[in-house]
């Protein structure tokens, strides 16, 4: 870790990067944003923005149930609950005689209410309020290792499932006729989004994590004509917003998550203005 810190100091001789917490935050952003950028392209294509939002909100329930069940780590509780909740939403959405957004809204409200009920017992919710806005400056070297492993595992799995998901997002019947296991892939994608969202929540915050997943991909979609351009621009926008947001937050002494999302929103607005010129 010391060697990496040294390399950063040599390559990026900025005043802000004198501090270890800033170096670690920068590394965390460089690890998180490409994964969110890639996953975001499919979340946008499959019109699942509301789904990932609901998943983010369920982090509270994960921690709450973790406490009830006596799990030591909040992160493990969030990851476990996030994966289970993602699969529950998918199953209910397919089984219920109601529209997808209604089902997701019901699931989201239920999980938030349940989480608040458990965590606010005895008036102790204040200690969890940091989850709402996140704190990327609190990243530890051990967290970075987990993030690196998550990025590697996520990208490998993403390479494996992408083509099938792409065909499914265009037309499900067509995908089935090409022997694509549409339901299985939908579940794998939901689990991947759940893991990425839960891993990022402590740094970006529950209220903003969905924006970081959706905004770069939505901005990229405004100017991309092919799947490759969509992925590349989405990752670039996510990384640029992440880095610019981090340094701005340092300069303005404000929440990094909020600054990152505002940069992503500005990029979205700019690409929206360019959309007609580029895509015709």
């Amino acid at each position: 870790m010391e060697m990496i810190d040294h390399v950063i100091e040599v390559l990026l001789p900025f005043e802000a990067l004198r501090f270890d917490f800033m170096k670690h935050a920068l590394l965390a952003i460089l690890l998180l944003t490409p994964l969110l950028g890639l996953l975001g392209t499919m979340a946008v294509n499959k019109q699942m923005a509301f789904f990932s939002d609901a998943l983010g909100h369920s982090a509270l329930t994960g921690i709450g149930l973790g406490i009830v069940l006596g799990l030591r780590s909040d992160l493990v509780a969030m990851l476990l609950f996030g994966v289970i909740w993602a699969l529950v939403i998918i199953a209910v959405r397919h089984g219920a005689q109601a529209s997808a957004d209604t089902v997701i809204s019901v699931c989201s409200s239920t999980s938030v209410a349940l989480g608040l009920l458990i965590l606010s017992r005895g008036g102790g919710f204040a200690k969890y309020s940091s989850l709402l806005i996140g704190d990327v400056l609190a990243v530890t070297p051990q967290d970075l290792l987990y993030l690196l492993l998550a990025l590697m595992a996520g990208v490998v799995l993403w390479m494996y499932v992408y083509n099938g998901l792409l065909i499914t997002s265009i037309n499900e019947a067509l995908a089935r006729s090409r022997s694509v296991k549409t339901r299985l892939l939908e579940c794998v994608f939901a689990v991947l989004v759940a893991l990425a969202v839960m891993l990022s929540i402590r740094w970006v915050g529950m209220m903003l994590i969905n924006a970081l997943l959706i905004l770069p991909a939505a901005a990229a979609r405004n100017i991309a004509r092919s799947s490759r351009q969509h992925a590349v621009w989405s990752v670039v926008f996510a990384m640029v917003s992440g880095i610019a947001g981090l340094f701005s937050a340092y300069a303005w002494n404000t929440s990094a998550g909020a600054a990152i999302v505002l940069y992503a929103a500005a990029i979205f607005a700019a690409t929206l203005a360019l959309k007609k010129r580029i895509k015709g």
Partner: protein
Amino acid sequence: MTPDCRLCRIDLKNVGVRRGDEEVLKNVNMHIHCGELTVLIGQNGAGKTTLIRALLGEIPCSGEIRHEDGNGKLMPHLRKGYVPQQLDFDRDMPVTVLDLMAASLSHRPVWTGVSTATRRKVEACLRRVHADQLISRPLGCCSGGEIQRVLLALAMEPVPDLLVLDEPISGVDENGQRLFLDTVNELRFGKHMAILMVSHDLKLVRDYADRVVLLDREVLVQGPPAIVFGSDAFAQVFAQRKERAPIWK
């Protein structure tokens, strides 16, 4: 049989499909031959798409579906190609024709790029349906007829024993419809595959079909177009349309 053709015929014996307590299809007895264009016609809700889904193995059915080769031997695995109804998709999605085809024909994720070999393969597939000029075009910028030809190119790779076309030309302009069916005809004669198509356009059915099957939860009548179109069952099912436009005469 040409070397491309493995299948000889598909026999459906007493095929039925239930959805809950409802019998969506019953006692369907028909056969589909290689080198022939068989067209399913019938009113909405007659069970045409259900029959197609049963044939594709997407839904369970009662009765028997047998695939036989030229020597009368059973074929356990049938290669099937499928062209769905007019694609309902988000036209703003950044996906090109090459992306869709490469995602279907290769394992390399298309966001990492497309290899030269896969691109050549896609070009060859599109050339087969006279659509090679579409390769770099975003899918959302293609017309209905162009998209159907791209889907036909996809369904033809690998060359199927049975090609299933589910209302492939509804919503396509007449020029596009003729172009699509002429291409289907070329493939039929070139590859000698069995083709099953659902269509509501009786005029085109008359011009292109070898056999017509009139369905209303069961087979009402089947045979060459002239016989089916001249039958009482046909007159009964399409009575209202007959008064409006006698297009099958």
